[in-house]
C-alpha cells in the first residue's frame, strides 16, 4: 500500500510536467525537449539569439499553460461536482457543467464590443449560477437532484440563446463562434492566460482545501447534517467556487467538455475514492490529459483539429 501510493503520487507529480514538455515540443515545427532549458536560460540572461524564442514563449507556452490550467480546472471541478451532486452518471453531469459554459458562450459571441468579453462572460456565468441555485430552491431544500435538474433547465435556456446568436450573427463572426464552441486553445495568448488564471486558481485551491467537506457532502445530506455541517451553505460555497473556476477558463478557451468527465473517472480508477487524494490527483490527471489530447490535436493532421473532437 505504502509503496503503491508513493509511486502513484510521484507519477501524478511527474506526468503533467512530461505532458507539458511534450505539448511544447510537438507541432508544425517540432522541437527537441533539450532546447527548452536553453531557451529559458537565454531568456533570463537577456541574450536572445534564438528565433525559436518567439515561437516558444508567445505561441507554444501560453497554449500549453492554458491547456494545463483548463485540464486541471475541469478535472478538479468535475470530481467535485460528481461528489457533491452524488451523480457518477455522466450525461446529467455534463449538462450540468455546460450550463456555465453556455452562459459564457452566449456572451462571448453576443458581446460586440460594448464591454470587455471577459467581464461580460463572467456576468453571464454568474447569472447562470444564480439562476440554477434559485430554481433548485423553488421546492424548498437544495438537494443534489434539484441542482442537477435546475442545471439542465438553465443549460437548455443558454443553449437556446447560443443557437439564436449563431443564427443572427454576421457571417464573418460565425466561424469564431463555432471555433469557440469546439474549444479554441489554438487562439490563446498570454492575455487570456493571465485573465483566467487568478480565478481558476482560487476556485481550484478553494475546492481542494475544502476536500474533506466535499467528501462529507458525498456521503449524503442527512449524514453530513448529523455531523454538524451546514449542508446547504457548504454546497453553495463549493458550487460557486467550482463554477467560478470553470467559467474563467471557459471564457478564455471555449467549451471542452469531456475532460471533466474522463479525468475524474480515470482518477477514481487510479487512486480509488480516497477523499484526501481524489481532488489533487484529478487536478494532475486533468492537466495531463488535456495536454496530451491537445498535443495530438495539433500534430496528427496538417490542419489543426479542434480539441473538443
Amino acid at each position, binding site marked *: 500500500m505504502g509503496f503503491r501510493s508513493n509511486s502513484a503520487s510521484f507519477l501524478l507529480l511527474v506526468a503533467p510536467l512530461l505532458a507539458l514538455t511534450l505539448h511544447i515540443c510537438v507541432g508544425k515545427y517540432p522541437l527537441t525537449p533539450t532546447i527548452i532549458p536553453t531557451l529559458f536560460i537565454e531568456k533570463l540572461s537577456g541574450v536572445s539569439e534564438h528565433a525559436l524564442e518567439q515561437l516558444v514563449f508567445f505561441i507554444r507556452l501560453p497554449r500549453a499553460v492554458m491547456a494545463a490550467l483548463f485540464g486541471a480546472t475541469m478535472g478538479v471541478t468535475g470530481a467535485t461536482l460528481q461528489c457533491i451532486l452524488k451523480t457518477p452518471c455522466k450525461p446529467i453531469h455534463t449538462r450540468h457543467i455546460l450550463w456555465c459554459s453556455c452562459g459564457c458562450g452566449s456572451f462571448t459571441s453576443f458581446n460586440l464590443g460594448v464591454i470587455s468579453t471577459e467581464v461580460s462572460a463572467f456576468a453571464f456565468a454568474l447569472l447562470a449560477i444564480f439562476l440554477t441555485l434559485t430554481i433548485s430552491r423553488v421546492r424548498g431544500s437544495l438537494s443534489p437532484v434539484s441542482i442537477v435538474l435546475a442545471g439542465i433547465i438553465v443549460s437548455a435556456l443558454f443553449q437556446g440563446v447560443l443557437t439564436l446568436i449563431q443564427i443572427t450573427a454576421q457571417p464573418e463572426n460565425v466561424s469564431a463562434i463555432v471555433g469557440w464552441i469546439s474549444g479554441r486553445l489554438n487562439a490563446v495568448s498570454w492575455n487570456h492566460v493571465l485573465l483566467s488564471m487568478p480565478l481558476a486558481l482560487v476556485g481550484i485551491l478553494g475546492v481542494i482545501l*475544502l476536500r474533506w467537506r466535499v467528501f462529507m457532502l458525498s456521503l449524503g445530506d442527512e449524514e453530513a447534517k448529523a455531523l454538524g*455541517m451546514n449542508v446547504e451553505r457548504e454546497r453553495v460555497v463549493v458550487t460557486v467556487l467550482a463554477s467560478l473556476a470553470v467559467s474563467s477558463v471557459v471564457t478564455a478557451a471555449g467549451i471542452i467538455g469531456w475532460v471533466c468527465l474522463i479525468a475524474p473517472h480515470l482518477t477514481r480508477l487510479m487512486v*480509488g475514492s480516497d*477523499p484526501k487524494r481524489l481532488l489533487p490527483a484529478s487536478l494532475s490527471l486533468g492537466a495531463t490529459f488535456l495536454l496530451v489530447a491537445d498535443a495530438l490535436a495539433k500534430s496528427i493532421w496538417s490542419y489543426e483539429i479542434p480539441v473538443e473532437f
Partner: protein
Amino acid sequence: MIITVESLTFCYDSIPALRNISIEISGGELVTILGPNGSGKTTFLKCLCRLLKPKAGYICFDKQPIWRMKPKCFAQQVGYVPQIHSPSFPYRVIDVVASGRTPYLSALATPSKEDYEIAYQALEAVGCRELAERLYTQLSGGELRLVLIARALAQQPKILLLDEPTSHLDFKNKFMVMHTIKSLVKKGVSAVVSEHDPNVAVASSDKVILMKEGNVIAYGKPDEVVNEETMKILYDMHVEVISLTNPQLKFIAPKMLNIQ
C-alpha cells in the same frame, strides 16, 4: 446527560407522526423504543438529533434547548446512526469512520493522524478492525451497521441515537451490538435505540418506551412495562411472557396467529 422532551409534536405535511410527547430520559441509560412499523420511532429519533424540526414542544439536553446549540457543538455531543444508508462511492471503511471526526475539524482541515487513530479504536470497539481497508460499498448489511456505529463512536458523543441498529444483523450480532451499546452506556454515554424485537429490548435495556401511532403508551423498566397486555395493545397480537430463571430473563413468545 439528561434528555427532556416536552409536549413534542411533529407532522409530515398534515399527517401527525408524533403527538404531544413528554418524557425525561436520565443520563447513562440505555433506552429502547419499541413499536410497530410507522409508530413514529424514527421520527422521534430524528427530532432528537435535529434532523427534523418539531412543530411544537421542545427538547433539551441538560436543560439546554437543542435548537439553540451550535451545529458543530451539537454534533460533538450527539452521535446518530441512521436506519438506511446507501453508499454512493466506494470509499474505504476507515475514511467513512473518520468522517465521524468532522465536528472536531475546522472548515479547511482533513482528519489528522490522531483522528484516524480514534477512528481505528472505534472500529476496534465494535469488533471489526479488520474491515478498515475494505471498500464501504462491498460490505454486507450487518457489517455496514457496525461501521456506522463505529463512526458514531468516533464522534465521542455523550448521547448516542441509533435507529434500528440491529436490523440486518444475525442472531448473535443482534445481541452483540446491543451488548456493545450497553458497554458504552456503562462508560457514561446515554443511548436511545429504536428496536423491533421485544426480546432484544428486554434483554438489554434499562428503560423501554412503548410507542404507537405517535403516542407514548408506556415508559419504564422493561420488567414493569413489557407484559402481555401492553404487547397486545402495541402489536395487536397475543403473546406469552415466559420468565426464565437462569439467566433471569423474560422471553416474549408470540402465540401464533390462526393460520390454516
